[in-house]
Each structure stands twice: as C-alpha cells, then as structure tokens.
C-alpha cells in the first residue's frame, strides 16, 4: 500500500506538473484540493484522465463519489487497490 501511495503521489505531481512539490511533501491523509495541495477543478479533470490512462479507472467527472475518492492520497489508494482486486 505504501508503494502504491508513493506511486500515486508521483502520478499527481507528474500529471499536474506541480512545482516545488516532492513525494515527501505530500501527506497521504492531507486533502488534495483547496486546503492541502490547493488543487482545483481543472486539476481534478487532469487527475481523472491520468487515473484512466494509468489504471483504467473511469470516474464520473463531477459526482459525489469522485469527490470522495479525490479527497486524499489515502482515499485514492483505496480506490486503485479495490479496482486492481476486482
């Protein structure tokens, strides 16, 4: 799981082309949007695309569920792990 989280952090940094942020800077439980990393709705779209490309996960663009998955690296990791298991 730790490995997956690191992988996801890297994905977030690469997909969103974040500057001055390293894997170590991202707290797995920290909110990705607004408060924590300060990401916005355009980033959510980019991240959705990256997840689709990397793991084949499709998420409805603006659903309550998507928002829940995107809350943090922890929740994203759960999503990816369950998708892999399925």
């Amino acid at each position: 799981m730790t490995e997956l989280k690191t992988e996801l952090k890297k994905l977030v940094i690469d997909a969103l082309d974040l500057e001055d942020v390293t894997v170590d800077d991202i707290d797995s439980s920290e909110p990705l949007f607004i408060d924590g990393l300060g990401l916005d709705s355009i980033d959510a779209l980019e991240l959705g695309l990256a997840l689709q490309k990397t793991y084949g996960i499709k998420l409805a663009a603006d659903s309550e569920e998507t928002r829940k998955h995107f809350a943090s690296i922890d929740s994203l990791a759960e999503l990816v792990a369950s998708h892999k298991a399925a």
Partner: protein
Amino acid sequence: MMTEPKRLTGLLQSVVEPDRVVALRDNTGVTMQDFQHRVADWQLAAEQQPAAVFGVYIKDTFEFAAALFGLWYAGKTALLMGDRLPATIEQIKGRVGALAGDFDEPLTLPVIRQPEPATRGKVRSFPALDPAHPAVIVLTSGSTGTPKLVPMALAQLDDEVAMHEAQWGLVAGQSAVIGTVSHQHIYGLLWRVLWPLAGGRPFVSELCQYAEDALAHASRLPSSVLVTTPSHLSRWPCQTGEKAEGNWRLVVSSTAPLALEHSVFGRDYFGVPVTEIFGSSETGGIAWRQQTEDEVWTTLKGIAVDCDPESGALLLQSPLLGHQNWLKTGDRAEVFDRNRFRLLGRLDRIAKIEGKRVSLTRMESRLTAHPRVTEARVVVLEGRRTETAVVAALDESGQRWLETEGKRAVSRALRQWLADDFETPVLPRRWRLVDALPRNAQGKVPQHNLMVLFDKSGGTTPEAGVLNDNRLPVLLGQEWLAANQVQLHLRVQPELAFFQGHFDELPVLPGVAQIHWAEHYARALFNEKLASRDTFSRMETVKFQELIRPGREVFMELTLQPERSRFVFRLHDGDTAFSSGRMVFDALQEPI
C-alpha cells in the same frame, strides 16, 4: 553671455563661433571648427557609398556626433546599434546598406571606419538640413519584449531638443554634459549629444560608466550636468552623508521611474534636485518632475495630457507626435489641469486563465503589499494549462524567511496571501523568489527576462552529457581559484543550437542555456563531490542582468558551497555581470 539656442537643422550653417568648445576629449577642448571639419570628412565618405541607411556604432561621442551630421548632410539615415556584435549586424542587415564606425571584423557589409581627415583649409559653409530628413532609426525594447525599430525625422529630434532647452537651458547654462548612458540609445543621443550641441554647451566625449569617472571630470570643470539613470543613481558608490565632487547644475534621470529614496539621495549628494524625464522612443519626452519637491509630473512645454474616462489611460497630445490627435498611452494616470499628472502604474493587464478573467496588475499590487515582497511581476504561462506565475523580489527579512523555511513554504504562504482576493484557478502555481527583478541595462524588466525563469526545460535537470557539442560553448580555458571554485573561459559561438531560428529579432543566449551550462560544468568539475546527489532541486536568486549575444567571450565562475548544499554560478567578462544564481541540491541526506 548666453548663446542663442540653435536648431539642429541650422547648427552648422554659419561659423559664428569657430572656437567654441563643443566637446571635451581626454580633457581637451574640441572646437566648433574641428567639428565642422570632421562632419565634412564623414559627409564625403558617406557620399561615396550608395547605401541610404547606415548601421552606426562609434564609441567616442564627438566622433559619433560628427558621423551623424556627416551622414545627414550626405542624405543618409543612421540606425543606432546597441552593440557591434556579429549577430547584431546579421539582424540589421536587411535594414542597412552599410556600416559606419568602430567595426574591425571582416564584414559582409561595406563599412566606413574613421574617414581620413581632408586637408584642413577654411571651413566651407553648410546649408540648412531638411527637417523632414529621416535622421535616425532607434531600437527600442518595447513593453512587449520584442525589439522594435522606430524611425525618427530630424524635426522630431530638433523639436524635442528645443523643448528641453526651453525648460533646462537657463539652469544648465554652459555647463559641460557628463553621461553614464551611451549615446547609441535615444536618451543618450538627445541629452548627451544633440541638446548640448544646440544649447552651446560642451559634452564630455567619453562615456562615464563608473561614478568615479563622472566625478573626476566634474572636479576639473567649472560646472556640470549629469545625464544618468535610476540604475546608476540607485547604485552610486559613496558613503552616507558624502557630497559629490564638482559643481552640479542639473542631474537628469530617465528610462525608468526613480525611487523616492534615490531621488532624495541624489539631491543631498549632488546638491541639486534630480530631474526625472518621462517619455519613450515612440512618444518623445512627455513630462518632468523633481520628486523631492513634488511627486506629480508636469508636462514639457507644448504638451497636453488628459485621462481616458473609460480605461483611465493617460492621453497625450504632443507636437513630437507629428499629428494633433490624442494618443492613448499604456499608463494609468490621474490628471490635473491638462498639464500635471500622477502615474498610477501600467494599464490593467487582463489575462484569461482557464476561462476566468484576472487583472495581473491587481495581483502584482496585492503581492507588493505583502510586508516581505518589494516588487513582483506576474506572467501568464501556456503549458498543460494556462496559469499565472510570479517573479517576486523579497526584502532582507524575506530572504531569511526563504533560507529558513524553504521555497515551498514561502510560495505557499504567498499563494495563501493572494487567496482572499483571487479564485483558486487563477492563483499562481509557479514562483521565482529573487532578491531583485531581472532588469536590463536601462533599468527595465523585459518580459523575456521573466519568461526565461520559467522555461520548462530549466525547471527539470537534464542528465549530464545530454548537452551535445552544438549546445555547449567553446571551452577556452579553465582556472581553479580555490579548492571549491573554478573559473571557465568560454566562447559563445554563433553556431550554437540556441541561435538557430528561434529569434525574430536579435538573437540572445537563453537564460535556460546558461543554467544548463552551469550545471553541466559543475557536474563535470565537482564530480566526486556531487556523485551522491543526482538532482538539483531548485534555483535561487537567479538574475539575468545583461544579454549575451552570439560571438561573445565570457567567464563562468562556479563556486561549490557543500556546507549549504548548493553551488553558485556567475557569468561575467570582468566588467559586465551577465547572470548569476544558485542551484540547490536535492534532499540533504548528509553533509558532503
């Protein structure tokens, strides 16, 4: 006795004062008669060339003035070159038929170097020049960042000189004019050459790049005028409370607004208020002020201003424009009585970021309002998404903040500072925290200097060895100055990939290439000390002060500071500093 000010068109018409000193060269007076002889030499040489436009670069101001008048009398136009590098010549080749001045390389264009002096007989009389003659073409940096060619008729130069003479002629009297700016640019041309000639006061033929040179001249002269810029005034080397040598009658500053503190310094140091001139190559002079008396600008004689009710822009009506229409400038202003105004900054620059409109001007003001930010510029980057990016200059406490907390924490705090006023999608995502904005020699911050700081390939680090021969300079020499300090002698050959087809105008060495070179050589030379660290995490205090043109030889000084996990690079040629900065290694595992 005051001399009647002359129009430039009729300056040489009659030799009423053949012995009048027009210039001081090596501390010796050069007379009006000498000037006329030399103008005749240049005229003769220019007439033998079919070219209509000459690229002119002459170091000595007297020789330059004579060449200019000689070209005009031969019916030719002078394109003023900022330098004489091969690449510059290559760029203007389409616009000029020949060159005039200090050129020594083998050239593809015909050139007049120093014409042979003809036998010195009686000075022949010159007719009046045609005011409509296309006298000069000046190169201006322009607010867009791309250099622009601005042609000017003799009447425009003549009218502007007359305007300044009407305002400052009495104050300056016959004082000698000393300058820290080159006559190869419009400000120096007007103030160091044409205004002294028309006003009957001598000019010092040497450019005084150092304060000491200017003071040495002034100490030998009965009275002096200084033509300078905020770049020089803000860096004038002297002790607090010290007074300048010499008897200064007028100190003129132009090309950028002068900070109030430097205006106060100038007045106390030179004993006269610093007179700032506001204008541009495109508009000519517009207004003046002496901030220590009043921060409001007053228009020069014959110029009217108004405020555009819609945009708040300063509107201008000036005889120097060659028409009677109102011209909308790019500055916002508060106007009083049609002849006085206060500048309120550049007109709002509105950008559309991912569909949302944002005022970059407002974002800059908000950033500058932060207690640790002295100046800030916001640019728009087009990448994966359209985004704003900031170059912010921090004050001393800000620099300490950056050193202790790190770049990420500081940029995050600044982003938070903006978050109250701006929506998340328009908030800056890229930050360059510097101790001073990347200004050019004229004190301006060209867009190009800001953009190179965000060059995508500059943000990430190429593997050592990725730079092939076509992307590296010629290494002419290498000298170790200390165990952790090395100086490389480099030639920036014009064949480099960076100069191939990227430029609409004058090619320059991109900032990102300089950074790559610094890293490349640091890796090569400090190899054993760097081996354990494979990446550089960030650049700090990167400054690009002067452009590097193809063909130039430069020194690159690299200093490793292992205890601070960084190395410092500096590109210079002994006199001029081109760029400098620090590169910080990634995650500090152990001290090296």
